[in-house]
């Protein structure tokens, strides 16, 4: 005859439902807010981007090295694309982070996937930023401009 045993169905939660320690701080709130704010800005940036690149003039046929170079000669478009790159990447990364959180079943898988995700994000953002800022409309190798370049006459 055991004396007291735990009351079995009050407060006994199946282990997979137990919440382990809440997150401190407002990270989720800020992420949530960021998704909305970046979303609004992205609408302008992306629609502008698509319109200029695909709709104006000859559309996609006009896109070549020269087209890009022409755009990035203007700091306005440099800033535009930079903002788009950062916002889209952060927005997208946070979105995918949510999805990983939702569907990864094990904590270890979750950690793995997120590591891959964040690494990719860092690489892409760094790469893209470098490209925009260090872009040289008239690349010269060994004193000879590369073909297709956009060199001042």
């Amino acid at each position, binding site marked *: *005859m*055991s004396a*007291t045993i735990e*009351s079995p*169905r*009050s407060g006994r939660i199946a282990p997979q439902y137990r919440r382990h320690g809440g997150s401190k701080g407002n990270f989720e709130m800020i992420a949530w807010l960021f998704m909305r704010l970046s979303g609004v800005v992205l609408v302008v940036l992306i629609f502008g981007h698509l319109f200029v690149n695909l709709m104006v003039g000859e559309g996609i046929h006009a896109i070549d090295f020269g087209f890009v170079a022409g755009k990035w000669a203007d700091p306005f478009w440099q800033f535009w694309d930079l903002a788009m790159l950062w916002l889209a990447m952060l927005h997208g990364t946070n979105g995918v982070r949510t999805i990983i959180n939702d569907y990864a079943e094990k904590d270890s898988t979750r950690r793995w996937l997120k590591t891959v995700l964040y690494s990719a994000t860092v690489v892409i953002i760094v790469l893209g930023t470098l490209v925009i800022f260090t872009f040289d409309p008239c690349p010269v190798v060994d004193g000879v401009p590369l073909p297709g370049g956009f060199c001042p006459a």
Partner: protein
Amino acid sequence: MQVHKYDVVIVGAGGAGMRAAIESGQRARTAVLTKLYPTRSHTGAAQGGMCAALANVEEDNWEWHTFDTVKGGDYLVDQDAAEVMAKEAIDAVLDLEKMGLPFNRTPEGRIDQRRFGGHTRDHGKAPVRRACYAADRTGHMILQTLYQNCVKHNVEFYNEYYVLDLLTVEEDAVREDGTPYKQKRVAGVVSYDLASGELHVFQAKSVVFASGGAGKVFKTTSNAHTLTGDGMGIAFRRGIPLEDMEFFQFHPTGLAGLGILLSEAARGEGAILRNSEGERFMERYAPTIKDLAPRDIVARSMANEVREGRGCGPNKDYVLLDLTHLEPAHIDAKLPDITEFARTYLGVEPYTEPVPVFPTAHYAMGGIPTNITTEVLQDNDTVVPGLYAAGEVACVSVHGSNRLGTNSLLDINVFGKRAGIAAAEYAKTADFVELPENPLAYTTELLDIARNGTGDEKVAVIRKELQDTMDANMQVFRTAETLNQVLRDIASFEERYRRINVQDKGKRFNLDLLEAVELGFLLELAKVMTVAALYREESRGGHFREDFPDRNDEKFMKHSMAYKDDHAPADGSAESIAGIRLATKPVVFTRYEPMVRKY
């Protein structure tokens, strides 16, 4: 065997049980055992309101409330209890408000109050606004608020634990006048865990029964499927008497065939009843107040129409509640729930079509006898130490032979609170009573009979036949003949019950098995009700004997007390029928002399 030890064990987590738990949980180690998750309890179905003489909107006082309660119960009310209830009503409502209950408010921000049948100012001079309410779901808000406060106070619940037995011991004792008697004492309860099928013993210093009503003895009822009178049945089997079981309230307007309640407010707002000929028949039965006659009169008139062949529908078994002459806007404003239920469940559009209704079994006035401190009585005046009861399962008796609307939500709060305090205080001073030897024996046998039965009888079939005969013979009209018919039927059901076959043999969530056990309680209670009804050769409140249509104060101004007594001779005399012995208990009078009950 699993044994749990608690100071206080509360059986049932409806309004009464949780109100008790809030008090007891803060004073003593308390467990609440309930066969349903607390918020599933039927207190949540109550709509109308809970009355208290707050005098927030007009002059009122608790003495008038006491008078209304006594008169409403046709003077069979114990007046000391009614006084307690009416007086403590005010605090009961304020307590709930402080716990967070979202009452509707007056323009000044106070708790709003509205009228309800039978509540009057100055001893019947005019209707008074006494019922506090939260929209049309007062009961729901009471249940939720009490559960919320149980969460706040960390009350320990054992959900889906069916209590199946009360453990008592008997001691030899001597009365003041020198006569020896057997004193009962409480040791605990036996409980069945629905999830695992295991039995658990709960040893406790105090046990509070708050397990609600027994409406499922009838077919047409506003009560939940789970209101099978377990608490009453368990107590009765353990030698505790049941008081005033013949009094059962039938509400006139239940949705036909379903029993789902349509609030009295409908007729208050101008709806009328019609029979199959389109006739407003209440003009014949109550020429002056017509459809607004008291519940019992209207219910009887409806039943009479059906009996005389003027019922509607394919089986001519209901009448119609006609709202078609009312403005749809008026209906929407005042009766949203009625229209919703009628549309959802009968597909009837109340704006344009009359709604099929029939009296529905609603409330058990009787139950486990207690005094005003909610201590259970083992006879007219001997208390069982440590055993308490409150709510619909108990009979204090504040409702006498007919409960007033809104007095039950009040009852569960006032006496639930009292029970919680009393049980905890008792547990502080008392010791555990030694468990009887082999405490599981009775319950194990009960379950084994049901589980291992190899007969060919189905629980559902017997239950349906029981409910049919109760509806046909024990409802709003009763005669010696119909009551004897019920008793004959029950005798055959009891015999068939021994040959039931439960299909589910498993341990997990075996509701099949528990339905069989519940049927056992229903049979027991139906029999007690019928025997008591047969004994009471008069008509009073909810009990109407066609062969004795008048109230007979000389002979019957007293409570009936039914004892389980296997040695009671089945001699066919009214006082003693096959296993049940009937006795009486005097009614407590304080200041109101019986008068003719008329409004």
